[in-house]
């Protein structure tokens, strides 16, 4: 009896040892599959990042050209008795043009002059205007002023255009290249950090376009989204998880919440157009409507993650609270919610990050639009970052290519910050 037992034991051990090698090999293979899967994903991410950063990084610098600007009363059209309003309305582009002509006196043809004026950005006249309005003593003097270069000239100064390509195949002409080279030799060109990219709104001139309006728009939209989706989502989750009876109705609600999470976002946009704009007559293109629509999109995410977080709170906490005589409300508000809060916040932040990247629903409610002014409230017309990216990608001017990638970099930066915040909150509060 004993012998037989031993014998079968040996047999089993031998069988196990024989299969062990095979099983280890299978495990190693499996791990390699996993590693190559991670690696493939990582390679795609790297290609994407290299492409975007490569294309976008030139957008963070900007070229300026030093011009001896002649603030001549006559060219500007400012009389001796001019009011500040007259000064603001004066013709500053004429001053820039005449100053450029003085610097390059041998340009005489109409076409030649036109290409000369094209070296300087259209926006330069507005910065001159602001300078003179602030300091009217400039009138009548000649000053060396750094003026913003036109995007085509800037693109040449950034070495993005090859001089050797045929003239018909590039926007910058041979004669302009000659002038730019002269300016460069005289030390009259300078590359600076592109501050206006962060301090100005959209523009049709690539060198003047910035993301400030879109950033503010995104902020107001997300503010509305958060103020709506967070309280409603958490309330719904608490009630469904803690107080609601289990019956057919709550099952139905649960199924519908899960369903809503999978509805394409454009559907919510159509709903926003029909309900909030056409029926409630809320303004078009406003962050208010955008925020409400995005709140509808993020609600299911917040409810589902909050319920999971509340459900994961240990029963001992309930029992302890109930044991010392706390009511159900007290138990939930004083004990369960604080413990579940990291999970709830994580879910909310991920939901908000998702809302930050949405464009499709905003198309229907008029937030995909050219909006230059920075919005000052939730009812002002506004656009959001991903929409700004879409609009720039659609512009015919070549200078917007780098702006598009630069805006993508900013958007990705915000997404990384938000997701990192979610991780941080979870780690921080879980330790307590």
């Amino acid at each position, binding site marked *: 009896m004993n012998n037989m037992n031993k014998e079968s034991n040996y047999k089993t051990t031998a069988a196990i040892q024989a299969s062990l090698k095979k099983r280890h090999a299978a495990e190693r293979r499996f791990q390699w599959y996993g590693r190559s899967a991670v690696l493939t994903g990582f390679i795609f991410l790297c290609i994407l990042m290299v492409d975007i950063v490569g294309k976008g990084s030139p957008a963070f610098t900007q070229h300026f050209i030093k011009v001896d600007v002649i603030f001549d009363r006559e060219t500007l059209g400012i009389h001796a008795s001019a009011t500040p309003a007259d000064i603001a309305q004066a013709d500053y582009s004429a001053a820039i043009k005449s100053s450029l002509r003085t610097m390059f006196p041998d340009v005489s043809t109409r076409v030649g002059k036109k290409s000369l004026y094209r070296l300087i950005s259209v926006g330069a006249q507005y910065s001159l205007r602001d300078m003179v309005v602030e300091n009217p003593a400039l009138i009548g003097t000649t000053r060396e002023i750094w003026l913003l270069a036109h995007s085509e000239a800037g693109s040449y100064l950034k070495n993005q255009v090859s001089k050797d390509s045929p003239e018909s195949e590039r926007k910058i002409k041979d004669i302009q290249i000659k002038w730019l080279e002269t300016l460069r030799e005289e030390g009259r060109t300078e590359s600076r950090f592109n501050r206006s990219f962060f301090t100005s709104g959209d523009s049709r001139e690539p060198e003047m376009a910035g993301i400030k309006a879109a950033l503010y728009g995104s902020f107001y939209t997300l503010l509305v989204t958060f103020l709506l989706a967070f*309280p409603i989502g958490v309330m719904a989750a608490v009630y469904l998880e803690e107080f609601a009876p289990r019956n057919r109705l709550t099952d139905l609600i649960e199924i519908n919440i899960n369903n809503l999470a999978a509805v394409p976002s454009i559907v919510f946009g159509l709903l926003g157009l029909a309900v909030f704009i056409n029926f409630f007559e809320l303004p078009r293109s406003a962050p208010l409507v955008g925020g409400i629509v995005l709140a509808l999109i993020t609600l299911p995410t917040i409810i589902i993650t909050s319920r999971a977080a509340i459900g994961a709170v240990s029963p001992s906490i309930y029992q302890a609270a109930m044991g010392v005589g706390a009511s159900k409300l007290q138990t939930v508000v004083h004990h369960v919610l604080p413990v579940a809060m990291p999970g709830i916040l994580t879910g909310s932040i991920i939901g908000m990050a998702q809302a930050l990247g949405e464009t499709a629903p905003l198309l229907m409610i008029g937030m995909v639009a050219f909006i230059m002014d920075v919005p000052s409230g939730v009812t002002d017309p506004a656009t959001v970052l991903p929409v700004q990216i879409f609009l720039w990608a659609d512009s*015919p001017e070549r200078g917007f290519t780098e702006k598009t990638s630069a805006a993508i970099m900013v958007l990705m930066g915000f997404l990384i910050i938000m997701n990192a915040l979610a991780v941080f909150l979870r780690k921080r509060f879980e330790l307590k």
Partner: protein
Amino acid sequence: MKNFLVGAIVALATFGSIHSVQAASHESVSIVGSSTVYPFATVVAERFGRSTDFKTPTIESTGTGGGLKLFCSGLGANTPDITNASRRIKMSEYDDCQTSGVTDIVEVLVGYDGIAIANSTQSAELEISLYDIYLALAKDVPGADGKLIANPNITWEDVNPVLPPVKIEVLGPPPTSGTRDAFVELAMAGGAKAVPDLKELSAMSADQVDEIKAMMVKLGVPLGVYNALAERKGKAPKGKDIFTTLAYAIREDGAFIEAGENDNLIVQKLQANPDAVGIFGFSFLDENRDKVQGASVDGIVPTFDTIAGNEYPVSRPLYFYIKGAHVGKISGIQEYAIEFTSLKAMGEDGYLTERGLIPLSGEELKQIQNDVKNLNRLELE
């Protein structure tokens, strides 16, 4: 936890107050419409916003049809004040406007745009005629016996032996686009008129019922088309109506690919596929001369001068429409229109002209400026 509850309550209160503050009308001019006019309108809006005290108008690119639909949906703060169009307003749209209370419309012609038929600079330049375009892209074309048959042409060589033996692959705008409307009207219908029977059909009036029907039989078109049109219009269709139904239909067998409203995308696709041909606005051709080249149509190459001189056959007018009832209620509408139609913008040396808008003649411009100044009302019969 208390903080959280307080936060939530404050949040809800804030939201409530936002709600009540919500103004009765928008402060900046709201503009919708054509994606072709969009690049020009935004430039005007930007200059207007920077150089005046008015707020910068907001401009959405919805396509001509979509813009007119929004524009004609009624009066009030949540409807646009101006819509851009890359074709004239249609009678049906005008009627929609009238019924929803938008009776006071000012039409502003802003200039011309050519529709370029282009391919990659890596391949040979195309020289085609309107008839070639019709034969290459129509859903039904005349067969050997003169009856219309489903388009059998696979390569450009099938269309016209002098063209290269390359598969027909055309990227063009979707039906919501004004570019598409103008393209079918100018190029397809223009080419279809080279077929004598179709040309004859297009000239027949609504009274010539028997002639129209006889011609339809000759062309092999089922008479159901006639009845369906009669039912839709509510009256007897003209020969022209039958003609447009036939000539405007673009083939759906994959040779024509709808590429969306994004003209940059078409340019990129052409670069990737040198055999493909794209259809888009002249300003995109002008900006991307290093990547794509325009085909000559009926011997005319699309350039600034040939479009301005009305020589290039596929060119169309660009418009915007002002909602007269909103002028005075929303500040800046008329001032924006005046800026748009000023010599500084639309003149020979204007900043829009520099951007590729083909300007109006001096007399036309004066007439338009006058219309804007007096807000002359558009009457369509």
